């Protein structure tokens, strides 16, 4: 499978009777055929780039979540039975609360290392979703979702949604004031769904909100159903990484037909294995020194008290923000039924946003019509329209996300609440367009700069005075390796539509042509050999 670029001394022939290790290996192989696995994967090559670590962070924080979560299940009671708290935390002594809340407090205050495990679990969950988000951005902006990886993008996207569901169900388990309030918001949102909302809420909570069933039900989802799905999808995701082999950034010697990097054994085993411990270590550090989700400050759930300035965990922010940005009075009674557009609009907008991101690889593939496999990653600037679309999407998301903190922004910066909301409404609606145009222009400018450097060299900083008195800066040509990095990218031109055999142009073709024009009208072609040669002696 793999060939090293340099001749290496042949390994010293191993002794036949190799002691315990050899005997054990032999024993194992005769029963499992494991030598085939070592042969197949032991020298599998992985390319190196810091951005490839983002997916690893996600995977490793999930392992940390599983480990710490398993510890927590031994102590947590997923029950809403009323008990009188009698633990170590004095301010809540004698307070009526659910067994879930009481056992969460016991984990925090009566079990040695329990608070640490709770905080590791929570910090790891926050990191998990964040790492998935960043990983998705890496995939998107480098075009790693192109053929043959479209399906793996969808699998990853499902994982992102599952991760948020895991986060929300976990956040709701301790049955503290904030988590109960979060559930109240979910209840209110669900009730706003036309036709089925009231009954879904009734079924979900086992009767009226809050009821005594929801914590137990969320627990089943949180520790059984959702983790099983996450594990299944992670397994699928990784199987496809093996099947497709990892993408790599363009560079000298890197082609669509090879993978240049380091073998799993030993270099990647050390680096990736070590990286797991680093991720775990950083989470443990956070959990040792930084409090997260201090439920003892909030107290048990009670529908009446309220704390101003409370926030959901960061990954739910965009949904909460979407609810906040809706203008007043968007609700009608029509045909004797209530249409809560203040709920329906944000739900539909978020749903559309998610679906568009989910199917983006298929849309782009349809526009380009490119059926080849793509294993070399794009530099974001070289896919200007895609990068600009990504920036627009991120601006939309960021605007919604910021809106989840509208009250805190208002109090912190001493501005009016109304002003913050109106500004963010503008950011969410107009911001994506501004981000789109800015990003596209910046990408094209960067492409022009690259082209300039390839054709005319880089600015050396050496100023020369010509005999005529004119000063010029000497440009030095770049070497062929650097040049290859700048010129090795795919360039697409807009689709020319031609009538089909019956002399007609179908609506689909027209749509594809206009999208293609939108994508590729502004394009900077990579310099060709001829151009580079022609430019020699230009200056």
């Amino acid at each position, binding site marked *: 499978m793999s060939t090293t670029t340099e001749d290496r001394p042949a390994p010293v022939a191993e002794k036949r009777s190799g002691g315990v290790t050899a005997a054990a290996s032999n024993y194992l192989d005769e029963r499992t055929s494991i030598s085939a696995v070592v042969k197949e994967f032991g020298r599998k090559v992985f390319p190196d780039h810091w951005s490839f670590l983002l997916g690893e962070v996600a995977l490793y924080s999930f392992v940390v979540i599983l480990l710490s979560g398993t510890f927590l299940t031994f102590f947590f009671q997923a029950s809403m039975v009323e008990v009188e708290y009698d633990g170590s935390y004095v301010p809540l002594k004698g307070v009526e609360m659910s067994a879930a809340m009481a056992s969460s407090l016991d984990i925090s*205050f009566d079990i040695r290392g329990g608070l640490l495990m709770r905080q590791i679990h929570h910090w790891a969950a926050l990191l998990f979703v964040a790492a998935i988000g960043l990983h998705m951005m890496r995939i998107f902006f480098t075009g790693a979702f192109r053929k043959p990886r479209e399906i793996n993008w969808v699998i990853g996207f499902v994982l992102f949604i599952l991760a948020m569901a895991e986060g929300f169900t976990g956040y709701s388990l301790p049955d503290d004031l904030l988590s109960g309030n979060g559930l109240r918001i979910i209840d209110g949102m669900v009730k706003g769904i036309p036709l089925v909302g*009231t009954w879904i809420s009734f079924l979900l909570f086992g009767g009226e909100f809050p009821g005594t069933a929801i914590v137990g039900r969320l627990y089943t989802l949180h520790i059984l159903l959702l983790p099983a799905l996450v594990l299944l999808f992670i397994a699928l995701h990784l199987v496809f990484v093996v099947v497709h082999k990892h993408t790599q950034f363009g560079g000298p*010697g890197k082609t669509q037909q090879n993978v240049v990097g380091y073998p799993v054994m030993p270099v990647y085993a050390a680096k990736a294995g070590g990286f797991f411990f680093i991720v775990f270590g950083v989470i443990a550090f956070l959990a*040792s020194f930084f409090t997260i989700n201090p439920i003892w400050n909030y107290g048990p759930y009670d529908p*009446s008290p309220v704390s101003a300035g409370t926030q959901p965990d960061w990954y739910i922010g965009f949904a909460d923000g979407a*609810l906040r940005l809706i203008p007043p009075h*968007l609700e009608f009674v029509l045909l004797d039924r209530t249409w809560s557009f203040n*709920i329906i609009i944000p739900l539909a907008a978020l749903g559309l946003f998610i679906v568009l991101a989910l199917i983006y690889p298929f849309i782009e593939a349809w526009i380009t019509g490119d059926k080849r496999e793509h294993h070399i990653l794009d530099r974001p600037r070289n896919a200007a329209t895609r990068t600009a679309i990504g920036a627009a999407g991120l601006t939309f998301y960021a605007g919604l996300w910021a809106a989840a903190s509208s009250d805190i922004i208002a109090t912190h910066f001493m501005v009016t609440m109304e002003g913050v909301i109106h500004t963010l409404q503008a950011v969410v609606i107009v911001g994506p367009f501004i981000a789109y145009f800015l990003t596209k222009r910046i990408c094209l400018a960067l492409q022009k700069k690259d082209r300039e450097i390839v054709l005319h060299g880089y600015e050396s900083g050496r100023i020369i005075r010509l005999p005529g008195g004119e000063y010029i800066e000497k440009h030095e040509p770049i070497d062929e390796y650097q040049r290859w990095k700048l010129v090795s990218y*795919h360039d697409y031109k807009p689709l020319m539509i031609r009538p089909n055999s019956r002399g007609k142009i179908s609506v689909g073709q027209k749509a594809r042509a206009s999208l293609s024009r939108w994508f590729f009208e502004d394009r900077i072609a990579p310099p060709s050999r001829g151009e580079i040669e022609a430019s020699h002696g230009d200056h």
Partner: protein
Amino acid sequence: MAQDGQSTELTASGDHDEVETLSPGTAVVSSDAVRDPGLPPHRLRVTDTDPKKAKRAERVVYTLFYLSLAGSLFAVAAYMAFPIIPEDLLSVRLNNMFIGVGITLALLGIGIGAVHWGKALMHDHEAIDLRHPVRGTDETRARAVEIIQEANEESGFGRRSLIRNTLIGALVAFPLPAVVLFRGLAPEGEDPVELLENTAWEAGTRLARDPDGTPIRASDVTIGSVFHVIPEGLAEMEHMLEEKAKAIVLLMRLKPEDLNEEESKKDWSYNGIVAYSKVCTHVGCPVALYEQQTHHLLCPCHQSQFDVANHAAVIFGPAARPLPQLPIAVDDEGYLVAQSDFKEPVGPSFWERH
């Protein structure tokens, strides 16, 4: 890039013709593209050239592993040395911190040590794997098609269409009972719409303070004050939290001339005292922030604002409807009481509400 030198060589070897026949779509395929110069020469690390540096890197790696060992032992020792003393918050903090520091050290020691080993000492010559098209080879695909055709032939799946279609029908139908079973999630014999339309307030129920449940006299309510209110006797109710989630009320007293009351609701207030549901009509958070000067109520969750002087009309934010008003009066002993239940469902909107 399919045109660069190296890959042309590879395709020439006959391995990848299938790939090359795939359409590039609107991609520009130039015959004059720059050629790949191939892998740049390998650069040696200091640890490759300087044995002293290599020795030092080795020392760093095993020292980190030693540190990790020490960290693990420290965490175990800290577990015992910093027990949690009941009712002593500091002991929890120290326990958390010292066990955590030990574990952090143990993990980072292994992690940084292993990565440093990999980067500084392990053989660092880049290796190359060749890729093959993801699709199976033509023979594999042909054989797969053949197998499926044979299976179809042998089973008659395509030919015996009635068998096939009834099987599909049966397979679609068989999960249905499982779906129906989930009806059991909610209690039977209860109608959510009916439940949502009623609260614990009845004619004559006294307004009591939240959370201690003591009734409120009209004379206790001074101008500008605000009370968090529950129905008297709430604590004894069977479904306390569910009832409380619907019945919570805010009681405020404004100057009567500030109140802008509709004619039909004039007798719902008493002497400038008004009572409104505390459950936001948006998604149900408690609307509990009262601004005395402007008579505005603010929901802390999504910042809907209600004007108490105008029957709690929505003046900002995502909510659509005013907060329902609880009609109040005063009983013989001077306590505030409800005239009746709310005249409309409280809380978030729902489909059947009209």
